């Protein structure tokens, strides 16, 4: 079925020719219910070049350039976005060139990477871009050939009219297309006719990445640019005094700049600054709470017991249900702080020039970078340009603009172009982290093992709401109480891939496993029974689609041969986050007396899969990430300073620690949703539940390897 969009009066899309005869299609994403075309003269285009360099251009030679607005950090948006445009355009993918767009809030909206939200947000907009371009090209061909547009077909960038035998490539019609008017209504392609979407398309930056071409922020160099490295204060401390004599004496150090509670060493290359930074003698004094991990453990326990909680959801009468329960199950789960640790450390280039500023580097939120710079400099945001480089990972770290602000500060102080580079030690000690959190779960069971009440209380740090109160099992239980308590920590925290759910899902899915076993039920059937209840007789608000969740649970049960092989102990987990559904089964076999994690089977419903290569990448990568941090990730504090300062003590998962991961995607007709995050949350749960099934040890805290329940378990990993 084709989708039709209705035109609004607002200015959305502009079409124009250029002096070179090319076709440009420009968007104002802000006002974009649907397209309205404005045809401009060449002079107007040139005078509005900024507004018009734009989203899509087709040259007279038929080459198509598609600008990708959102920052690329490995989620593959730079390949998948243009695929959607090219699909509706019926372009020849071989002739498409993709260019990373700079920040432009007039042309693009939601020009950021976070929340797995880019594809669901832009799906229709991208289709509109491609379909509009095709419409005007076809109209131009129809006019040139004097044939009805309806009789014209387009395939791989070639426009053809069967009746007259005429055909030509896009480029032959761009000049004429620029004089056409886009339709008030637009018809999208039927999904069954897709030729690019749903096919494996390789990464558009592959060649550059594999030959070492400059792509990333850290690769940006400019003649005359200064380098800076920065010593930041421990959390909760401020600078008392700075002795920079020894640092200044290092050959290659040009200046030492103090701003706020940071001290920057500045010079013409990186290495002398690394040495000089270690020679800074800085005395700090407490400014606020100076925290250690032991404080956090104590605070969690206190606040779980007595903290003033925000009630997030209340169904029925929980107290009565627990009073009448045949059995009560209760458990607490806790996770530590984590660093984001993208492989490319934080860095940014800034050049402050009077009331103007140029910013270049890796950011998930280019507009936040710009706004932050504007605030520091006291200049209008429109005086600031932001060029987005490829990001060597992000995981949420680059949603923050702290390292951009540093570059701006140092550039202003030095009156010169400056690139700030963080070391790995800076990255691990400089914030901002996935905060620690502790949950208490309680379930009431009746005599038949039905869950009659469910209670969850979460205590988080700077986390706001630590729960997802309308997620499963809410809706499936008569009596529910979900509460959240927040503690304000002086340690800077930030969204970390699948915020909150990256741990909540593990805790919840492990606890439901505990409840199922106490109820004497198969863990999968237990969930299916609850889901059936939520479907036929839901309680209160549901934040998830019950049928889609049942879909992935059933499929994972089948694909994993759940419960069929007595020699394989299995752990189940399912979670809905960021609009997608993922169910997982982890398989552990006892081999020579050793529990061996052999495989994780994952079933995903993310609607239509745009690019199977990218989808596989995101699901497997999310699982590896979830497993690595559940197993090993731990950042602890002493007096406001992390103890783990590099990868020798802050352990990341490696090649030999990943099992086979089998991925399946449900074929559904839903519009595509994002995949950067949803596969991660269920992972800890599937593995922990399998470990319990195999060993009888219940892991209620992360990282697993540091729990006493795990200390004598030698978990082997069987690779594919």
């Amino acid at each position: 079925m084709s989708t039709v969009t209705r035109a609004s009066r607002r200015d959305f899309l502009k079409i124009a020719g250029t002096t070179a005869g090319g076709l440009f299609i420009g968007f104002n994403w802000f006002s974009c219910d649907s397209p309205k075309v404005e045809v401009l003269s060449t002079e107007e285009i040139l005078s509005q070049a900024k507004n018009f360099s734009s989203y899509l251009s087709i040259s007279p030679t038929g080459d198509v350039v598609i600008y990708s607005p959102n920052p690329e950090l490995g989620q593959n948006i730079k390949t998948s976005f243009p695929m959607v445009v090219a699909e509706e355009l019926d372009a020849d993918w071989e002739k498409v060139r993709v260019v990373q767009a700079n920040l432009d809030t007039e042309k693009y909206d939601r020009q950021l990477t976070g929340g797995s939200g880019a594809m669901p947000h832009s799906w229709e907009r991208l289709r509109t871009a491609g379909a509009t371009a095709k419409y005007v090209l076809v109209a131009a061909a129809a006019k040139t050939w004097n044939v009805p547009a309806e009789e014209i077909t387009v395939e791989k960038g070639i426009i053809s009219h069967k009746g007259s035998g005429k055909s030509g490539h896009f480029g032959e019609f761009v000049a004429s297309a620029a004089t056409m008017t886009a339709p008030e209504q637009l018809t999208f392609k039927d999904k069954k006719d897709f030729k690019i979407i749903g096919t494996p398309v390789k990464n558009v930056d592959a060649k550059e990445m594999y030959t070492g071409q400059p792509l990333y922020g850290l690769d940006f160099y400019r003649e005359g640019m200064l380098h800076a490295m920065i010593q930041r204060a421990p959390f909760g401390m401020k600078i008392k005094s700075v002795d920079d004599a020894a640092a200044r004496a290092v050959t290659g150090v040009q200046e030492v700049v103090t701003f706020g509670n940071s001290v920057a060493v500045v010079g013409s290359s990186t290495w002398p600054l690394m040495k000089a930074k270690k020679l800074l003698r800085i005395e700090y004094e407490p400014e606020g709470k100076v925290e250690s991990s032991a404080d956090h453990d104590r605070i969690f326990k206190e606040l779980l017991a007595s903290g003033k909680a925000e009630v997030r959801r209340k169904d029925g009468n929980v107290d009565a249900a627990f009073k009448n329960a045949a059995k009560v199950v209760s458990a607490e789960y806790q996770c530590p702080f984590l660093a984001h640790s993208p492989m490319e450390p934080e860095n940014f280039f800034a050049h402050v020039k009077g009331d103007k500023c140029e910013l270049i580097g890796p950011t998930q939120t280019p507009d936040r970078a710009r706004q932050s710079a504007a605030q520091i400099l006291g200049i209008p945001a429109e005086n600031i340009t932001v060029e987005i480089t490829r990001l060597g990972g992000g995981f949420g770290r680059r949603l923050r603009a702290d390292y951009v602000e540093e570059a701006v500060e140092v550039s202003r102080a030095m009156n010169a172009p400056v690139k700030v580079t963080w070391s790995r030690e800076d990255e691990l000690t400089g914030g901002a982290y996935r905060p620690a959190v502790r949950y208490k779960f309680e379930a009431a069971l009746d005599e038949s093992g039905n869950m009659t009440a469910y209670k969850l209380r979460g205590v988080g740090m700077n986390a706001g709401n630590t729960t997802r109160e309308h997620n499963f099992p809410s809706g499936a239980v008569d009596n529910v109480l979900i509460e959240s308590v927040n503690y304000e920590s002086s340690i800077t925290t930030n969204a970390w891939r699948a915020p909150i759910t990256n741990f909540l899902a593990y805790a919840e899915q492990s606890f439901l496993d505990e409840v199922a076993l106490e109820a004497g039920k198969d863990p999968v059937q237990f969930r299916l029974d609850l889901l059936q209840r939520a479907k036929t007789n839901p309680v209160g608000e549901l934040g998830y689609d019950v049928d889609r969740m049942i879909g992935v649970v059933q499929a994972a049960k089948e694909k994993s041969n759940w419960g069929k092989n007595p020699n394989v102990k299995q752990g189940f987990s399912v979670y809905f986050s960021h609009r997608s559904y993922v169910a997982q089964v982890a398989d552990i076999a006892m081999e020579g007396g050793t529990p061996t994690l052999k495989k994780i089977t994952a079933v995903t419903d993310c609607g239509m899969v745009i690019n199977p290569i990218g989808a596989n990448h995101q699901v497997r990568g999310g699982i590896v990430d979830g497993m690595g941090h559940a197993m090993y990730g731990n950042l602890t504090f002493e007096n406001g300073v992390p103890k783990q300062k590099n990868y020798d003590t802050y352990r990341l998962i490696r090649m030999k620690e990943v099992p086979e991961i089998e991925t399946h995607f449900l074929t559904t007709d839903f519009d595509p949703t994002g995949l950067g995050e949803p596969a991660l949350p269920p992972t800890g749960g599937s593995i922990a539940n399998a470990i319990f099934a195999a060993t009888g040890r219940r892991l209620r805290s992360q990282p697993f390897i540091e729990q006493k329940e795990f200390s004598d378990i030698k978990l082997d990993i069987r690779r594919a």
Partner: protein
Amino acid sequence: MATFNLKVNGKNHQVDVEDDTPLLWVLRDHLGLVGTKFSCGVAQCGACTVHINGNSTFSCVTPISSVGNSEVITIEGLSEDGDHPVQKAWEEVDVAQCGYCQAGQIMQAAAFLKSNPNPSMDEIDNAMNRNICRCGTYHKIREAVALAAKTK
């Protein structure tokens, strides 16, 4: 400061730096060869892997004073047109997510396959275990190394 003569990717270079300057920073800051990546700086992640006389080496902990007349090869010099069997396998398998660690992974794989042209999967895992990929592309790295071994 001292003057060092280096041979990188078959070309001779002269740089004036302190003798403890790691090869990594000479490549990046002084020679403009930014394909070799900085990530941990302490020989833990492998993003900075280069070949010195054919052996894979962490350039982040290799002082320039220790390089001497050795033959240094970086990702930019691994092949003329990006057509080294390992690079081709990486493209074929479409290994990368963010891509930042991949130059180091490729350099490690290329040196490994030179010393062990017909590795078992276990040997591949052992060899590649010293390079971290934060995106978790390990399955694809393994697949690409095996493919490169087959197609070389």
